[in-house]
């Protein structure tokens, strides 16, 4: 166990050093740091002095060492674009991104696992043609009726969506198949289009939810401002969180479904059925428990991608987080911010990977036999 942890730690350290080296190369060779800090009309002597003071005349490996030391202390210099310390910039925008990421990850996990279990249990048989026809008629006819009554397209769509959700109760295998089909389409749609679509429906047409910003925030502690405590803050969280979670949600759903179907075919489930245990006990107490191990891994790893995918969602919704800071920095070639963001994301990924690996090790006793080769 100890050897396993040590080896994983060492691997993480190597990955971090490699990423730090890339960040350093960017910082040092993309544009001239001195040009970025001084104006065009600075004197040559001043430039040389600054060059010396920044240690840019030191040997290469010394510069890298200084960079790593500073990075470990959280110092990344001054942003070229905003003329503020990079660390401070990132920290001030971190709460927005973390709140968004945590909410969407929980949303993805809860809805994804629920739908995955549902489709695994009820989607074993394809729906009978009678069930499909009834369900389709129940969805389409009221929508058409509303359309002819002149209530507009959105009412029709809303009614169709509501009735579709209700099929989960009376046409279960139809609902499962439909959810699978919709999820396949959802995976191929770009995130930003989903966001724009949600803005169009809920902000432009229905005028229910705000389409940009965080709403009102309350400062909790040392610059951690939260949007959880105000009504406008919570309302503005809904659309970005849904947009960000959809992709991970489909991923988790498909994973849970596949794992659950596998488990439901196994002998001990058949035995539990033979014992006459109620279906709900079999499904939730016996089957679901064994599907959770891979789900934990994937969800943990996805938390990292959620933070990275937040780049797109934050831009669509003008969410003042780290991701939109990064996009603006790329547009303006603001290298210190880009380098710091790269290191930040790498750190998040490495830490999450490490935690997930350890959790996996703790949760599944089968892995403890001997050190399996861990992968970053």
């Amino acid at each position, binding site marked *: 166990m100890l050897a396993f942890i040590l080896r994983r730690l060492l691997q993480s350290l190597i990955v971090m050093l490699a990423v730090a080296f890339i960040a350093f190369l960017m910082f040092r060779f993309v544009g001239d740091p001195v040009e970025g800090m001084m104006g065009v009309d600075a004197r040559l002597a001043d430039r040389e002095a600054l060059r010396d003071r920044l240690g840019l005349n030191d040997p290469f490996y010394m510069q890298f060492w200084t960079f790593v030391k500073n990075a470990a202390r959280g110092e990344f210099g001054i942003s070229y674009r905003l003329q503020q310390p990079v660390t401070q910039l990132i920290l001030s925008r971190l709460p927005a991104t973390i709140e968004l990421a945590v909410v969407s990850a929980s949303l993805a996990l809860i809805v994804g696992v629920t739908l995955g279990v549902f489709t695994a249990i009820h989607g074993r048989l394809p729906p009978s043609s009678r069930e499909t026809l009834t369900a389709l008629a129940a969805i389409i006819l009221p929508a058409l009726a509303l359309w002819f009554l002149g209530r507009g397209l959105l009412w029709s769509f809303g009614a169709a969506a509501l009735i579709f959700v209700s099929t989960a109760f009376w046409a279960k295998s139809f609902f499962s198949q439909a959810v699978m089909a919709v999820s396949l389409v959802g995976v191929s749609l770009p995130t930003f289009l989903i966001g724009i679509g949600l803005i169009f429906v809920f902000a432009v047409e229905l005028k229910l939810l705000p389409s940009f910003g965080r709403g009102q925030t309350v400062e909790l502690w040392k610059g951690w401002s939260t949007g959880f405590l105000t009504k406008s803050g919570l309302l503005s969280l809904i659309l970005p969180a849904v947009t960000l979670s959809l992709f991970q949600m489909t991923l988790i759903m498909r994973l849970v479904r596949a794992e659950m179907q596998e488990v439901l075919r196994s002998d001990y489930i058949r035995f539990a059925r033979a014992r006459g245990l109620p279906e709900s006990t079999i499904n939730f107490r016996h089957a679901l428990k064994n599907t959770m191990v891979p789900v934990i891994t994937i969800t943990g790893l996805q938390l990292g991608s959620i933070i*990275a995918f937040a780049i797109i969602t934050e831009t669509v919704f003008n969410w003042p987080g780290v991701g939109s800071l990064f996009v603006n920095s790329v547009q303006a070639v603001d290298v210190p911010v880009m380098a710091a963001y790269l290191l930040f994301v790498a750190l998040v990924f490495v830490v999450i990977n490490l935690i997930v690996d350890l959790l996996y090790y703790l949760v599944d006793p089968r892995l403890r036999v001997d050190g399996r080769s861990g992968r970053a």
Partner: protein
Amino acid sequence: MTEAPPPEAPVEAAAPARGFWARFWDSDVFWSYRHNPVAVVSSLVALTLILAAVFAPWIAPHDPFNPATLQLMDGFTPPGEAAMSGTVYRFGTDDQGRDLLSTILYGSRVSLFVGFAATLFSMTLGVSLGLFAGYRGGLADTIIMRVADVQLSFPAILIALLIFGVAQGVIPPNKQESMAIWVLILAIGLANWAQFARTVRGAAMVERQKDYVSAARIMGVPGPAIAFKHVLPNVLGPVLVIATISLALAIIEEATLSYLGVGVPPTQPSLGTLIRIGQRFLFSGEWWILFFPALMLILLALSVNLLGDWLRDALNPKLRQ
């Protein structure tokens, strides 16, 4: 995916000679294509869109980049209605009176060009590195696969953004606009190579154990020639599947980068740029400026994606009945 000379080869040669098309029609893959309506429809949609993009200069009713044909008076004409000048625009016009149908056709040209070029680039890179790693093994294999592992754990869009940012910093400002499209291809291509490398490496390691490779080695064929002439043709199936799926990915990534405002320059708008522009008019009710480019992008990405899905199943011998 045939292996070295199959024993039944002489029997086939004895059968009455049939034309290429007859054999093509009867092949496994085409049989599965004919019997899969999703594959037929999506390939037809993809083909139509690609042809429309390629022949855009001849098909498009207007030239959106020729200011002489623009009429500012026709701006914001809804689809299908007569504009001030009396012209009817099938898909409406944008704020400057450009015909949206023409803009979309020209835009998908840029999107598809970037998508194909980036896929070709990442395929070349990934296949060569994967073949090298899988056939050579040893330290080279470890290093290449470690890099691929680390890169695969980051989302491709983040890597593409970083590469794009770095390239913008290195290229002198006066060349940035003309180079932007190539930088974009480089960024998306570099972000997607790992998938190819991993697949090819796995397949190459399996092929390396087979008799025909040993035979070639005994005959004294040099290593690189074995890898490229003998092993490569046998691992092309999975590569084709990944290429199709990564074409859809590259199109989406290009659109995302352009939407974020770091992609192609505004003088050469791709579908992503058009969506970015169209979003400005979302709140004022001119929905068509956003809707048609978005629809085109969805159709393009979805049809290529579904085609890749079908190809993966069709080329997978395990799934054959």
